[in-house]
């Protein structure tokens, strides 16, 4: 059965410093993996997705993630945090014929 674990429930960074949000997954097949962002009182917005093409995936707003099959990880990174990046981030795994499985989310706080 597929599952996804976000290793940190809360990450705090200073503006201008790197961001790392960690995600491990479990899947019996070649999964698709997504990162969604949710700003306060807003719906979820797709940041990026991995669909078995390039293992390094670039998304919107300077975010990127690397699919590492050997480590079953799909960590989200950004070189320099901005105040507007403060939000909830969800790692999501999907297998053929199944529903999306969401992680519990990581809250990113950015201080000036």
């Amino acid at each position, binding site marked *: 059965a597929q599952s996804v674990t976000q290793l940190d429930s809360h990450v705090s960074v200073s503006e201008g410093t790197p961001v790392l949000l960690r995600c491990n997954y479990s899947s019996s097949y070649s999964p*698709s993996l997504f990162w969604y962002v949710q700003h306060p009182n*807003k*719906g979820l917005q797709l940041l990026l*997705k991995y669909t078995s093409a390039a293992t390094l995936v670039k998304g919107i707003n300077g975010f990127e993630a690397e699919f590492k099959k050997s480590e079953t990880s799909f960590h989200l990174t950004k070189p320099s945090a901005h105040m507007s990046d403060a939000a909830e981030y969800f790692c999501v795994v999907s297998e053929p014929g199944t*529903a*999306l499985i969401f992680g*519990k*989310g990581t809250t990113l706080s950015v201080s000036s």
Partner: protein
Amino acid sequence: NAGVTQTPKFRILKIGQSMTLQCTQDMNHNYMYWYRQDPGMGLKLIYYSVGAGITDKGEVPNGYNVSRSTTEDFPLRLELAAPSQTSVYFCASSYGHGSQETQYFGPGTRLLVL
């Protein structure tokens, strides 16, 4: 394109009351979904639809009903509201249903049952 829209944004219900959460998409997507999001948790699938007239249960369907009479609309019905249904409800849509499909989400409906 408005994308996925949901109404109302917020509602307070008394135990036992009923209500319908509205969801509309203007992207001509075949697939639509209802999720609930509880504090500190990821989203859980309630119901989904693969097209007009076709719906199916997700992971947590108890206490809810859906219908899909048109491509655009996918309302979620709560018949007898219970405190356990206090949550944020998100509607989503996608063009296809494959594992690689991107789902597009509405802004959510916050429901409080007292």
